[in-house]
Each structure stands twice: as C-alpha cells, then as structure tokens.
C-alpha cells in the first residue's frame, strides 16, 4: 500500500525537469516537497499522480505500475489538487464537489460525501454559491473539497488513498492554512498518505513526517524536518543568506527565520484590534 517513485526522470524540451528522483510514500505519512521555483516539485506530483509518464524510472501504486491501472481505479486510489483550475462554468460549490465523486455511488451517499467534504474545508455554508463568485482562497478550498470527495468512497471501505496537493495553502489566510494542514494531518491519521508541495518551510517543518528538497530537478536532501532543514541546505538550495533556525522545545522541529527577520526582538504588547469580525 505505497506510492513509489523509483529513480524517475522526466526530460523537458531543453533541460531535464526531474533527474533520477526516488520517493516512497507510505500510508499514514505526510511528505512535504520543498524547493525553489522551477525545482521540479509540480513535475514530481504530475509523475506521482500518473498524469505524466517518466522518461525513465517507474512509478507504482500498491506495487502496480501506475500506467497499468485503469483510470477509474487510479482515481479511487489517489486524488490531486492542482495549482490552478481552469473551471469557467457556473457550477455551484456543491455541484463542483459532487463532480469529484465517480459513479457508481447512490445519490444519498454522494450528498453525504459532498457535505462532509465541504464541512471539512469550512465551506458548508457555500454549497449553493456560484464557484465563479468565490474568492481565490475559497475556490481553492472548494477544489480541495472535490479532491477529498474523490477519495471518500475508498476511505469508507477502509482503503485510504493518497492525497497529492500542489501548494494547497498558497491562497489561504493564516487560519485556513492551519485548517488545510490539519486536513492533511487527519488524512494521514486515518491511514492515508499525503504528498504536498509547500513553499512555507515552517508549515513543512511543523507538519511533515519527511521533507524532500528538490533543486534543479534533483534530490537535494530527504529526511525528517530537523535533519533536512539546516542553514547550509537552505543557503544552497534556496539561495538565501544564512537563515536562523529555532528548535521547538517539545517537538524538536525546526523553525526557519530568514536572515531579513532574524534581528527582531520579541514583543508582548497587545493592542485591541479595530477590525473585529461581524
């Protein structure tokens, strides 16, 4: 029950997009993929999802080469949230989420799955809203709900699938970043695997079981957050000047403070905000 990428490479027109990268995603595990822009993170997800076939190397799901799985079965075993959606039809949020649920599925069960997925992403009140009228962050979570709904039937039969998320918090405010990261965490707790591309190193450090660092299409580092996130690695891979690291007193997980922000002192002063929520 693993999603396994074995020495995969994908060659683009001019340069290799991904060069002999290996990764195994186990059930119950969150793996964060980090790296600078153009490092091959999204390409890795495309290969892991079966959208693209590697030039060399193999991708297998539960031991079967991913290309040999019928599309319907593959869709039941893994779902992916892409970076951008091209949806321009005037579906309601509920209709969008139900699109993710493949037949055969009884209407009542579809309804239950869709509303549960909407509840998880905090959009239960938005089921009747036009997707086109949503904000960027709401739309991203609506698509996340669709992706969760796609895996829901397999969760119900005790075969949790793999969740592939490409920058799932890119459009989210701080509270919703936590919500989305908690969804990933819950998915892993229920026995599913989650592979997510993140730009926020600190979310990766605090929530991932393992981090894979890509740079120029190659594996730069892989391992537990504390092993991987070192000042040297960050300087090399991200080309940033000497970041500071703090270590969480209980979890031992690192927290990255970029150089520019390393000289701020702590403040305990609180001022009441004038923008209370209605």
């Amino acid at each position, binding site marked *: 029950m693993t999603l396994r990428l074995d020495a995969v490479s994908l060659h683009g027109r001019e340069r290799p997009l991904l060069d002999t990268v290996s990764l195994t995603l186990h059930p119950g595990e969150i793996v964060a993929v980090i790296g600078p822009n153009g490092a091959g993170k999204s390409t890795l997800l495309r290969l892991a999802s079966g959208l693209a076939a590697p030039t060399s190397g193999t991708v297998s799901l539960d031991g079967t080469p991913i290309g040999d799985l019928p599309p319907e079965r593959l869709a039941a075993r893994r779902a992916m949230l892409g970076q951008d959606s091209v949806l321009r039809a005037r579906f309601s949020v509920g209709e969008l989420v139900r699109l993710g649920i493949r037949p055969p599925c009884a209407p009542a069960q579809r309804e239950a799955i869709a509303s549960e997925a909407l509840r998880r992403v905090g959009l239960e009140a938005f089921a009747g*809203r036009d997707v086109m009228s949503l904000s960027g962050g709401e739309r991203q979570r609506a698509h996340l709900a669709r992706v969760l709904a796609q895996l829901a039937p397999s969760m119900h039969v005790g075969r949790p699938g793999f969740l592939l998320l490409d920058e799932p918090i890119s459009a989210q405010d701080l509270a919703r970043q936590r919500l989305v990261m908690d969804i990933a965490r819950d998915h892993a707790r229920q026995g599913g695997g989650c592979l997510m591309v993140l730009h926020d190193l600190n979310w990766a450090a605090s929530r991932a079981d393992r981090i894979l660092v890509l740079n120029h299409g190659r594996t730069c580092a892989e391992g537990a957050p504390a092993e991987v996130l070192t000042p040297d690695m960050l300087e090399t891979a991200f080309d940033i000047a000497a970041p500071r690291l703090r270590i969480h007193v209980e979890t031992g997980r690192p927290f990255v403070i970029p150089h520019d922000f390393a000289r701020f002192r702590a403040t305990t002063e609180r001022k009441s905000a004038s923008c209370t929520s209605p």
Partner: protein
Amino acid sequence: MIIRRPGFGSTMAGLSVLLLATGIAALAIGATGFGLGGLLHPGSAGRDDVAWLVLSQIRAPRVVLAALTGAALATSGAVMQGLFRNPLADPGLIGVSSGAALGAAIVIVAGGAWLGSGAMGRWAVPVGGMAGSLASTALLYLITTREGVTSTNLVILTGVALGAFAAALTGILIFRANDTALRDLTFWTMGSLAGATWTRIGLLLPFLLAATILMAGLASPLNALLLGETDAALMGYRVERAKRLAMLGVSVATGPVVAFVGVIGFIGVVVPHLVRMVTGPDHRLVLPGSALLGAILLLTADTIARIIAIPADVPVGVVTAAIGAPLFVWLLIRLHDVDVPS
C-alpha cells in the same frame, strides 16, 4: 450568489410540451392553411386530395426534418462547446458544417455518375457529409491542440478559416458542375428545409440514432472536462476517448443533416447557451435540453421562413441568422459580463 436549478423532469417535460405545440402549429400554418380542425380530422381535409398531399408529403416531412435538424445542430453545438471548452463553438461557426457541405458536394459531383440513384447513391450523400464534418473536426482539433491543451481563440479563428476554405471549394464545385442536385449556392450557404422528404428522413434516422448513442455517454466526461483536461484525467475520466467520441458524435449528427439541408447557422451556438441559462452547466441536462430547444427553435424559424414571403420560400438560414446573430452578440456581451474568458 446562490444558484437555483429546476429539476431534470420538469425541464424536459416543459420543453417536450413546447416542442409538441410548436410541431402542431407548424403543421397547421403555411401557404395552405389547415387549422387545428383540419389536422385533427384528416378525413375532412382529406376530401381535398391536394391539401392532404401537401400536409402528408410536403409539410409533415418538413416539420419532422426541421425538428431533427434543430436537435442535431444544437446538441452538436453543446458537445463542441464542452469539448473545446469554448462558449462560441458551433458546427456552423467553426467550419464543421461547411466541411460537411463540401463532403456532400464532392459526393454529388464526383460520385453522381457512377453511384447512380440506387441505394448506394442515396446513402453516399449523407456519408459524404459525415466524412466531411469528421475531417474538418479532426483537422481543427489537430491544428488547435498542443499536448492536450486546446487553444480556445485558435479554435474559433482556425474554424472560421477552415469553414471559409471548405465553402470556397464547395463554390468551385458548384460552378464547375452542371449537376441539377447542386443547382444553387444559396442552398449550401443559407440552408433550406424545402427538400424534405420521408425518404431523406429515413436516411437520416440511422445516423441520428448512432449519434445519440455516441453522445449519451458523454454528459459526465463533458462535465469533468469543464474543469480542464488535467483535472478530468485526475478524476478518472478517459479524456482522449471522450474527445474522440465527442468529435465522432458531432460529425455523425451534423454531416448527414448538412448534406440534406445545407449550412444553417447560429442554432448550434445560441441554443445551448439559452438552455444553460436555465439548467446550469450540467451536460446531463444541457444535452437533452439543447436537443429539444434546438428542435423548437428551428421549427419556429422554418415556419417563419415558409410564411414570411408567401409564395416564396425564404432560406431558413436567413431567418436563423437574422434572429441568431443579434442573440449571439447579446450572449457575447453577457458572457463578457460574467467574465467567461476567451
């Protein structure tokens, strides 16, 4: 903005009743008026053999052909709009109808001599139309799609160019030919339902049945395709298969129809939009809804074409263009307002 949708049953029932009413009205109205009484009691009309002949052999097949043509064109438009994810796709606008007309014209000119007027000759014309529309759809797809991504602007521009080219070739054929079947260019460019016969309807039915079967399974994949080919594939749909089925379905529906009625514009682009305004984008409603509304609107347009200049018979394409073009512009403005992109 909260979205409310009517149910599947009530939408289809409403459209079906409207189609029935339009069909009856179309039978009753014309140069020879029958009135409802005449229709309900064919015996009384039947006393006049000429009137009965007009009704049963001229008017009735024309009404049926108009409904079938409208349904085929509108459903094809809906499928194409879903396939190309382009709100402007329409067999007429993107050259598929012109391709079909060229295919039919080639068969008539080149094949007339040796196909004869037997069974083979009769089937050759709709098959030629189908081949022409399939060729132009496939060519359009090849030109406008790179690595699974279809450029929506390119679809329209290339389609217009392909359509113009096919129409030019058809024009050359018509001027070179002295075949009576190709008597005038107006028929091929404006369309006309005046040539309706039960024989032609009989020839059309197998094609339309095949197209219905091909398109019936397309609703769910087309819905998924609204999310883009990548997401549709991720959701487990066989995208390439759906695209091939859609192109084949459109060609099988449009080609033979165009071979018999010429190029009738705007039904394919306007009708699916009107349906979507009521049903939303779900193709499980849009496809059957377009078939019904397409039949209703072309039937109405053809009735207008028959009676607007009695005893002359105005080409139906003139009427659909006169009504459809302003509607089309209105749709463009409206689409622009809701930010449906190019």
